[in-house]
């Protein structure tokens, strides 16, 4: 998980492209981007783990209830 907090504290206007470049490097290193907020808090997963997780079951309601926030307030994709 990476927080690109240049979004909040930009020293110049090129930060979007620097973030894009580093994400591209991560992808080339074998990681898959599986989630991004509009503020670019991002989750990357190693490709082999991603492929393994993709074939597993959907989220259970039991686990949702473990989270502190209500299910409908969470951005579950």
């Amino acid at each position, binding site marked *: 998980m990476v927080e690109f907090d240049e979004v909040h*504290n930009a020293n110049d206007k090129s930060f979007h492209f620097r973030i894009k470049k580093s994400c591209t490097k991560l992808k080339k290193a074998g990681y898959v981007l599986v989630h991004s907020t509009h503020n670019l*808090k991002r989750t990357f997963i190693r490709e082999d783990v991603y492929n393994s997780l993709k074939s597993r079951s959907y989220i259970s309601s039991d686990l949702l209830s473990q989270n502190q926030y209500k299910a409908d307030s969470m951005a*579950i994709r």
Partner: protein
Amino acid sequence: MQHVIGLAKKALGIHPQQGVKPLNNLIHIGSHYHGYHLPHNFLTSDSICYCIGAGEDISFDTELKVMYDAQVYIFDPMPEGINHFQKLKEHTKKGKSLTIEPTVPFTYRLSEKQLEAITFVEIGVWDKKTNLKFFAPERDDYASHSLYLFQESNEYIEAPVDRLSNLMKMLGHSSIDVVKLEIEGLSIQLLIRLLRTN
């Protein structure tokens, strides 16, 4: 206007959702602002989680312990992070709750035993073992010192940093399941350095 900005970002290839691949079983863990999405069926009590950068919100880190009983290691050499962890320890010991983030409140919910099982390492992560200057925040709404931001500030703290591989060796780990990288203004540089050196 937002629609136009969205289209422009897509055209430039910098839209936040560009390049995101679908995964159905993601769950939000931690507070609204400092939480992350992880696959729910990924972590177990054997999972080793390195949370690099604590500051005054370790909700994601502590929830990994609460929800999965994972092995959690927090790295932060700055007083904000160290003091916040200590404050949480004191609250938990007294049986008092600690709520953070006034706009979307989050209340820590781990037990004293769970908190004791979390290791706080007062060392930062970098591409070599050294001491670095962390500059004091120049904004009232900004809690943390930074290596990258606020360099015009004359106020700084020198603190130890080390390579991720050295820290793993020190803690007896040969692999890590989760790395959270939340270091003020430096995520890009550190990511590139980690990819080069680890």
